[in-house]
């Protein structure tokens, strides 16, 4: 029974990953590749970690498996968000079939604080660097 569950989880996990793999190859633009890939893969990894939990059953393993899963589920979307955001900011082309882009033209609005923040950082360089700039 235990093995059964494990087996199923593993296979499902594998399937999700395969799906992700195919997705990242097949999807026509970056955003949809991400849509197809990262999440499916995350689920797949989750399944396999669950499989580990089920298979070993020991509490230490289970808890760690759960922690890892949680960690993956926390980080994956953040990572995806970061890439997508960056990608959009460098104007990675959208698929021709894209029907709407309400973000277009508003990026600067969104990006503004980043800009400030950046210039703010550059405004206070270390004295040494200051000299370097003079010297260059």
């Amino acid at each position: 029974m235990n093995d059964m569950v494990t087996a199923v989880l593993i296979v499902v996990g594998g399937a999700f990953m395969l799906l992700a793999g195919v997705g990242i190859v097949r999807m026509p633009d970056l955003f949809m590749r991400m849509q197809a890939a990262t999440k499916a893969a995350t689920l797949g990894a989750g399944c396999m970690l669950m499989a580990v939990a089920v298979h070993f059953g020991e509490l230490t393993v289970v808890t760690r498996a759960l922690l890892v899963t949680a960690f993956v589920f926390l980080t994956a979307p953040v990572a995806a968000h970061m890439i997508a955001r960056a990608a959009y900011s460098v104007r990675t082309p959208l698929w021709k079939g894209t029907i709407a882009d309400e973000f277009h033209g508003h990026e600067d609005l969104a990006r503004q604080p980043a800009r400030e923040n950046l210039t703010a950082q550059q405004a206070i360089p270390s004295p040494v660097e200051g000299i370097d700039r003079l010297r260059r």
Partner: protein
Amino acid sequence: MRMFLWNLLLALAWTVSTGQFTVANLLVGLVLGYFILLFAGRAIGHSSYFSKVPQVVGFALFYLGQLILANLRVAYDVVTPTHYMQPGVIAVPLDARTDAEITLLANLITLTPGTLALDLSADRSVLYVHAMYIDNRDVDEARRQIKEGLERRVLELLR
């Protein structure tokens, strides 16, 4: 109070991960957690989690359903030769205010296949989302789905 909660959490994490459920080890965990919080205290702002545990469960079930459905839809699209998706970037006006609300919402959106949180407007009032399936090209409908679906639940969960 919140700090103490944190501390307890860390201590627990410690005990389970070392696998020795004893008072002594819990104490060790508490002490450790205490120092870490002390150490990282400057870094951690204030945030409220783990209130309303039952809602968590309920929400989890709902979300899991969403997840599977969405996954199947994307999967179908991936494996079948023709592309059925009608993608687009839509602006979702937010009722969510606190960092936690916005973040959780964004992450859940992103985690669901088919939608992807792109960016947050500078005034944190609008969340730009890339959606794969804007059914019959109705942007507002897609917007509504997100607000009525995920956001509402997230908010009642966190408020």
